[in-house]
C-alpha cells in the first residue's frame, strides 16, 4: 500500500493543482448532467429481457381500463337515479376536453336501437348450430301462428308505426338471436344502461370513462388533471360525489408524500449530522469529508448517463442515498490521519489497506446486482460501483491533503488505554457477548417467518382515501380490472379471430361464467362463410313450407300476401361479410378498442375470465397449446414477481457472500480473522431480516438493495476492526466506525420517519441492519480479539 504513501508525498506540495483539477472535473460533470433527462417509469423496477414476468407485464399494460380514467359518481341514499344521471351529464360536460379525451358516460340512447336495427341483419353470418335449432323450433305451425298474432297486436299499438318495417323483415323474431352475441361483450360486470348511460345495478353509481394524454408517471400533469377534475366536480349537487380512479391520483399522492417525507427526513438527518459533527469532529476541515459523497455522486451519475440511453429516476434517487455510505472511506482516512501518532504517509499506507478492501467488498456486493433481472437494479449497481470507486480514490488520493493538521491523542491518554477496557472489566466483555448472542438468537428464531412480497402497489403510497375509492368502484361495478386476460395474437385479423374462436370453444367448456369475449360477435371470415352456407342449406329445406304456412296463417289475420316480402328477400340475398367496420358503424367502437388491438406485428384479441388460481392453472396448458395465445393472471403476476425477487435475493446474497468471503480470505488468510470480520455483516443481516419478521413486515424490492448495502457496510466494519486489531498503528477505527455507522443511521435511518412505504421500508431495514452491525463491530469483535497497544 506504499502506492498511496508515494502519491501523497508527490502531491503534497500541489494542493492548488488538485483543487483546480477537482473543480474542472465537477464543472465537466455539471455541464454533462445539465442535459440529463430522468425517466420516471416503473418499468425500471420490473424484470426485462425474456422473462415471463416481463412478458406478462407488457401484456397487462394492454388490458381494458388499464390506461383509462375511471370516474365513479355516487349518489347518497334517497337520490333518484335520474338526478344522478343528470349530475353525471353535467360532470361530463364540465371535464376539459384537452385533459379528458373521448369522455363518455354511456354508449348513448341510440346504441340499442342501432344494434337492433342493424345487427339483426347479420344473423346468417352469426348464427351457430344452436341458433338454427332454436329457429327450427319456431317454425312449428303453432309457434308461427302465435308469433303472427303477436305481430298483429304490436302493429295495432302506438309503437306499431316504428315496428312495421322490423316485422316485415323479421316476422318471427329470429334477429333477437344476434343480441345474445352481445352478452359476452361487457367488461364491466355490474353495469346496466339507463337512458343510454352507465348505471350500477343498485342505481347509486354512474360511470365516466375517458382517455388522457397525461402519462401516469407525470406528477405535474397529474396535478393539472386532478385540479381540473376537482373544479369540474364542484358542480355536483349535494348528495352526489365523484371520485377519479386511475394511476394519476397515486402518482400525485406519491410525489407529494415523497416531497413531504424528504423535507422531514432531510431536516432530521441534517440535525443528526450536525449533532454528530459537534460531538465527534468539531473542525471545519471535516467538511471536506462530507463533500466526498457529492463528488462521487456526480461522477457516478456521469458514468451511468454515458452508459445508458435512459437513466431511471428511481435509480438516481436511491443511488444518491446509497452513495451516502462513501463518506465512510473519508471518515476512516480522516480519523487515521488526524488521530494517528505516526507520519501521515505511513498512516495513509496503513489505513489504505482496510479502506481498499472495504471498498472492494462493497464493489463485489454491488457487482452481483449487475446480473439482476431488473434493469433498475443493474443501473443502480453500475451507479453504486462507480460512486464507490470514485469515493475510495478521492479518499486516499485527494482527501489527505485537505484535512488539516494531525491531532493525535495525548501520550498520557494512550497509556490509560494500554490495557483494553475488556481486560480491565471482564464482566463487561461477557455481558456484551451475552447480549449479542441473545439478539442473534431472537432474530434467528423469527427469520423463517419472513416472507417476500412482489406486489408493486405495496411500494407506492396509497392513502386511505385512494383505497376507499378503489373499493367503492369495485363494489359498485364489480371487478373491472382484476380479471385474468387471454391475449390471442395473429399476423392478421383473420388468424387472430380464428385462434380466438378456438380459445372461446375451450373457455365455454371450462369456464362458462364471467367471460368476456369477442368470439360470439366477431367470428372469422372462414367461420362466417361456413355459417352462411349452413344458413342457406337450412332455408333450402325449410323455406317452401314456411312460406306456405305464413301465407295461410297471415291471411287469417288479415296480412297481405306481400306483407313479409322483405323477410323472403333477405333469405334470398343474405349479407356476405361482417366485421370491424360494421361493428364500429353500430356504435361498438369503444368496446372493440378494449378487446381488439392492432400494431405493426398484427392483431391481438383480448378475452377476460375470472382470475381464480385453479381455473388459470387448468386452462393455461390447454390455452397456450394454441399458437399465439397467452394467459396472464394479475394475481399470478404478483406471485411470479415475488418469486423472481425471492430468487434474485437468494442469488444476490449467495453471490455477494461468496465474493466477500473470497476477498476476506485474500485479505486475512486466517479463519479466525475471516470469521471475526464477517460478524458485523452476518449479525446485521440477521437482525435486519429477523427484525422485519418480528415487526410483521415483508421483503420487497428495496429491501433487497438495502441488504446489499448492509453487506457492503457490515463487511467494511469487520475489516476495519480486524485490521485495527492487527496493525500496530492506531487508526482510530472504532471511532471512525461509530461515526460512519451513526452517519449511515442518521442518513438512512431517518427514512423511518417517512410516510412513503418504499422510503420507510429502506429506512427500517437499514436502521435494523446497521444498528446491529455497528455495535457488533465496535463491541463484539474487540470482545473476541481486543487490540493491544
Amino acid at each position, binding site marked *: 500500500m506504499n502506492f498511496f504513501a508515494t502519491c501523497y508525498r508527490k502531491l503534497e506540495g500541489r494542493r492548488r493543482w488538485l483543487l483546480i483539477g477537482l473543480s474542472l472535473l465537477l464543472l465537466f460533470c455539471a455541464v454533462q448532467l445539465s442535459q440529463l433527462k430522468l425517466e420516471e417509469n416503473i418499468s425500471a423496477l420490473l424484470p426485462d429481457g425474456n422473462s415471463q414476468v416481463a412478458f406478462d407485464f407488457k401484456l397487462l399494460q394492454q388490458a381494458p381500463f388499464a390506461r383509462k380514467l375511471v370516474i365513479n359518481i355516487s349518489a347518497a341514499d334517497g337520490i333518484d337515479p335520474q338526478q344522478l344521471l343528470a349530475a353525471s351529464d353535467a360532470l361530463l360536460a364540465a371535464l376539459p376536453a384537452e385533459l379528458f379525451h373521448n369522455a363518455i358516460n354511456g354508449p348513448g*340512447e341510440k346504441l*340499442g336501437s342501432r344494434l337492433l*336495427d342493424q345487427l339483426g341483419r347479420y344473423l346468417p353470418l352469426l348464427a351457430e348450430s344452436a341458433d338454427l335449432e332454436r329457429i327450427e323450433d319456431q317454425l312449428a305451425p303453432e309457434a308461427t301462428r302465435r308469433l303472427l298474432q303477436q305481430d298483429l297486436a304490436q302493429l295495432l299499438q*302506438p309503437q306499431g308505426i*316504428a*315496428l312495421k318495417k322490423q316485422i*316485415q323483415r323479421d316476422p318471427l323474431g329470429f*334477429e333477437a338471436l344476434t343480441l345474445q352475441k352481445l352478452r359476452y361483450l361487457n367488461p364491466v360486470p355490474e353495469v346496466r344502461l339507463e337512458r343510454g348511460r352507465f348505471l350500477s345495478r343498485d342505481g347509486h353509481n354512474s360511470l365516466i370513462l375517458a382517455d388522457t394524454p397525461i402519462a401516469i408517471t407525470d406528477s405535474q400533469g397529474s396535478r393539472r388533471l386532478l385540479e381540473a377534475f376537482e373544479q369540474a366536480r364542484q358542480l355536483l349537487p349535494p348528495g352526489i360525489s365523484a371520485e377519479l380512479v386511475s394511476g394519476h391520483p397515486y402518482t400525485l399522492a406519491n410525489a407529494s408524500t415523497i416531497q413531504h417525507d424528504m423535507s422531514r427526513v432531510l431536516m432530521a438527518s441534517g440535525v443528526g449530522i450536525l449533532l454528530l459533527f459537534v460531538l465527534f469532529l468539531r473542525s471545519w476541515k471535516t467538511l471536506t469529508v462530507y463533500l466526498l459523497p457529492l463528488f462521487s455522486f456526480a461522477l457516478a451519475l456521469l458514468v451511468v448517463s454515458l452508459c445508458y440511453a435512459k437513466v431511471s429516476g428511481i435509480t438516481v434517487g436511491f443511488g444518491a442515498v446509497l452513495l451516502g455510505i462513501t463518506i465512510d472511506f473519508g471518515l476512516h482516512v480522516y480519523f487515521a490521519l488526524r488521530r494517528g501518532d505516526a507520519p501521515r504517509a505511513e498512516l495513509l499506507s496503513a489505513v489504505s489497506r482496510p479502506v481498499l478492501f472495504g471498498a472492494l467488498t462493497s464493489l463485489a456486493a454491488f457487482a452481483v446486482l449487475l446480473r439482476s433481472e431488473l434493469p433498475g437494479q443493474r443501473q443502480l449497481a453500475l451507479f453504486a460501483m462507480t460512486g464507490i470507486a470514485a469515493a475510495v480514490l478521492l479518499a486516499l488520493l485527494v482527501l489527505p491533503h485537505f484535512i488539516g493538521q494531525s491531532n493525535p491523542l495525548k501520550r498520557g491518554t494512550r497509556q490509560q488505554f494500554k490495557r483494553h477496557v475488556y481486560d480491565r472489566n471482564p464482566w463487561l466483555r461477557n455481558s456484551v457477548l451475552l447480549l449479542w448472542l441473545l439478539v442473534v438468537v431472537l432474530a434467528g428464531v423469527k427469520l423463517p417467518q419472513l416472507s417476500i412480497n412482489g406486489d408493486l402497489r405495496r411500494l407506492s403510497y396509497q392513502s386511505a382515501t385512494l383505497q376507499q375509492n378503489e373499493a367503492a368502484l369495485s363494489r359498485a361495478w364489480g371487478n373491472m380490472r382484476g380479471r385474468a386476460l387471454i391475449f390471442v395474437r395473429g399476423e392478421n385479423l383473420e388468424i387472430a379471430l380464428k385462434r380466438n374462436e378456438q380459445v372461446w370453444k375451450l373457455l365455454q367448456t371450462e369456464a362458462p361464467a364471467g367471460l368476456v369475449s369477442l368470439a360470439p360477435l366477431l367470428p372469422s371470415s372462414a367461420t362466417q362463410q361456413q355459417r352462411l352456407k349452413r344458413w342457406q342449406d337450412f332455408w333450402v329445406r325449410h323455406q317452401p313450407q314456411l312460406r306456405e304456412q305464413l301465407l295461410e296463417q297471415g291471411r287469417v289475420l288479415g296480412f297481405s300476401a306481400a306483407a313479409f316480402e322483405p323477410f323472403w328477400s333477405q333469405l334470398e340475398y343474405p349479407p356476405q361479410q361482417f366485421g370491424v367496420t360494421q361493428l364500429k358503424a353500430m356504435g361498438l367502437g369503444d368496446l372493440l378498442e378494449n378487446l381488439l388491438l392492432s400494431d405493426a406485428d398484427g392483431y391481438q384479441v383480448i378475452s377476460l375470465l375470472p382470475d381464480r388460481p385453479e381455473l388459470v392453472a387448468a386452462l393455461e396448458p390447454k390455452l397456450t397449446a394454441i399458437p399465439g395465445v397467452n394467459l396472464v393472471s394479475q394475481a399470478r403476476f404478483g406471485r411470479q414477481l415475488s418469486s423472481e425477487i425471492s430468487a434474485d435475493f437468494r442469488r444476490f446474497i449467495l453471490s455477494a457472500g461468496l465474493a466477500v468471503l473470497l476477498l476476506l480470505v485474500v485479505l486475512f488468510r486466517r479463519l479466525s480473522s475471516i470469521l471475526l470480520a464477517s460478524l458485523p455483516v452476518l449479525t446485521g443481516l440477521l437482525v435486519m431480516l429477523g427484525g422485519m419478521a418480528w415487526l410483521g413486515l415483508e421483503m420487497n424490492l428495496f429491501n433487497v438493495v438495502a441488504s446489499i448495502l448492509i453487506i457492503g457496510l457490515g463487511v467494511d466494519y469487520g475489516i476495519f476492526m480486524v485490521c485495527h486489531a492487527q496493525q500496530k498503528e492506531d487508526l482510530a477505527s472504532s471511532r471512525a466506525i461509530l461515526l460512519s455507522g451513526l452517519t449511515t443511521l442518521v442518513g438512512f435511518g431517518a427514512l423511518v420517519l417517512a410516510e412513503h412505504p418504499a422510503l420507510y421500508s429502506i429506512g427500517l431495514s437499514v436502521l435494523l441492519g446497521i444498528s446491529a452491525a455497528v455495535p457488533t463491530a465496535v463491541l463484539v469483535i474487540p470482545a473476541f480479539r481486543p487490540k493491544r497497544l
Partner: protein
Amino acid sequence: MGFRVRIGLLLLLLLVCQPLSARAAQPADESARPDLTPVFVRLRTAAAGIQSLSSDFVQEKQLAMFDASLLSQGRFLYRQPAYLRWELLTPVASGFVLRGRQGERWNSLSQETSTFRIDSDPMMGIIAQQLLAWARVDIDWLKSRYRIVLLSEQPVRLQLFPRDPGEAGFIEQLQILFAADNSHVALVEIHEIGGDKTLMRFSQVEVNRELPDSDFQAPDFQAPDHK
C-alpha cells in the same frame, strides 16, 4: 313479445332521437305564417283545468301490409300528473299503463304482462311523453318537436310536421282536431311515409271524472314479469 315491443320502441327512438338538425332546416318563411299565439293561448286556457280525461276511441289503420283496414276499439285514460292507460279492447286486447316513470304493458294473446321503466326503456318514454303532451295540451313541447300549421280555427285543427329528421323518416305529418270547447283532442290522423295512415277518433270524453288507481293497473294474467 317483450323483445318485439322493445325493438319497435327502440326503432322509433332511433328515428325520433336523431339530432334536431331539422330545426335549422325549417322553412325560412315560417315567420311569415299566421301568428298561432292566440290559438295556443285558447288551447292552453281550455286545458288548464283538466285533472283527468276518460274517453273511448276507435282506431282505423290503413296499412299496406294488410288487405283491409284494421279497425279497433279502445279506451284512453289520463290523470294528473303522469298517469296513463292506453288500451285496445278489440280485436286484440292489449295496451299499457303508466304510473309516473314506470308502468306495465300487456297482451291478451300471449297472456303476458311486463313491467317497464321509461328511463331504461327510452322508446316507451317517448310514447308516454307524446300521449301526455296530447292529454295535457302541452303546446310548448309540441312546438319544440313539430312545425305547426293552423288548418282551421273553429274547431281548431292543426297540422304538425316533425322537426326531427328521425321522426320525419317515419311520419310525414299529423293532423289534430280539437273538441269544440278546445278541452281535448277529438281526432288524430297520422300520415306515414309510404302512404300508410292511422286515424283515431275519441268519443265519450269525460273531463275531470274521478279515476281510481285501479284504472292504472294492468289486467292480471298471472304471468311472470319481463323487464
